[in-house]
């Protein structure tokens, strides 16, 4: 299982970044750090878990319009 931190701009319906992590705790900590970078931001920062990115795209397709940046952590 891989864990992904997704940053999504809801107003522009745009995927800002997607980072993958091997562990859910590390992913949630990374999400917290991102939230603290810009408190009160309207960006949606979400932690998802999936066997693969393709599986994620099937069940959470809403996030996958345009990808600006995809980085393994």
């Amino acid at each position, binding site marked *: 299982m891989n864990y992904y931190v997704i940053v999504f701009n809801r107003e522009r319906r745009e995927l800002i970044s997607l980072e993958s992590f091997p562990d*859910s*705790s590390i992913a949630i900590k990374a999400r917290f750090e991102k*939230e603290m970078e810009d408190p009160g931001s309207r960006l949606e920062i979400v932690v*998802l*878990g999936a066997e693969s990115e393709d599986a994620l795209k099937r*069940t*959470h397709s*809403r996030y996958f319009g345009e990808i600006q940046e995809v980085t393994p952590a």
Partner: protein
Amino acid sequence: MAEGVALSKQIVNPVNQLGRRLRESSEPTQDDLRELSHILEERAKTLEIVARQLREIGLSPTTRIKNTGTIIEKLKRESTLKLSKIQDLAGARIVRSMTLDEQDEIVSMIIGKWPSAKVKDRRVSPTYGYRAVHVIVEIDGYFVEIQVRTHYQHAWAQATESFGDLWGRAIRYGGDPEEPDRPVSDGVSITRRELIGKWKEMSNDFYKLAELENDVSRIRALLPKIEDTRERVTQEEAIRSLEIKIAKKFKNEKDIFEILSRSLR
């Protein structure tokens, strides 16, 4: 701890106190957000156990930890809800191209794994158009919500989320879109409110279509068992008649579903 065991007050009280502070604060403190993050790390461990067990019975879930903004939104929207009682802080989702009967089978498999799980069947009585079956599992006092969605239900739900991104999340809870009387785009007379109304009706149409396809699938499954030739011909005609009905009455829905599936892929 075993399934269904209640958490002690020493654990629950601080969690609910945090929930109250998050609800009442216009801007949550960094300490409270960190505490929430630690709670979510715990929930994620329970979610991992559930996901692993779902995979053991042949299902392929993806998982989701509820994001901070929607947790706070939910606490503010439901003024008596306790943080410890939110059932979807940790969730799993199973999406398949399947009939309604197959959806029932998956739900039965999950209940077979967790017999005390609670089932919320939102197919016949949807929540503002949202249809799915949710199974709530409780492990060590923590809840995990497992969403089981067919392809139609999922396409509708994802598109609704996107409407919510564009015109405000209130749509998902029966509210109006932002600027409800504004046309959906230049040169189009239909307003946002009207479009959302039609979209909710579309959920009913998708469901009727799914019911007919389910009927077809049931008859098809019976065909090999029918020995009497005349009876088999009758059932084959019933299938053809249902397929014609689907093609005629639900052409729009099929087309819209195809467009959604392509755009959401």
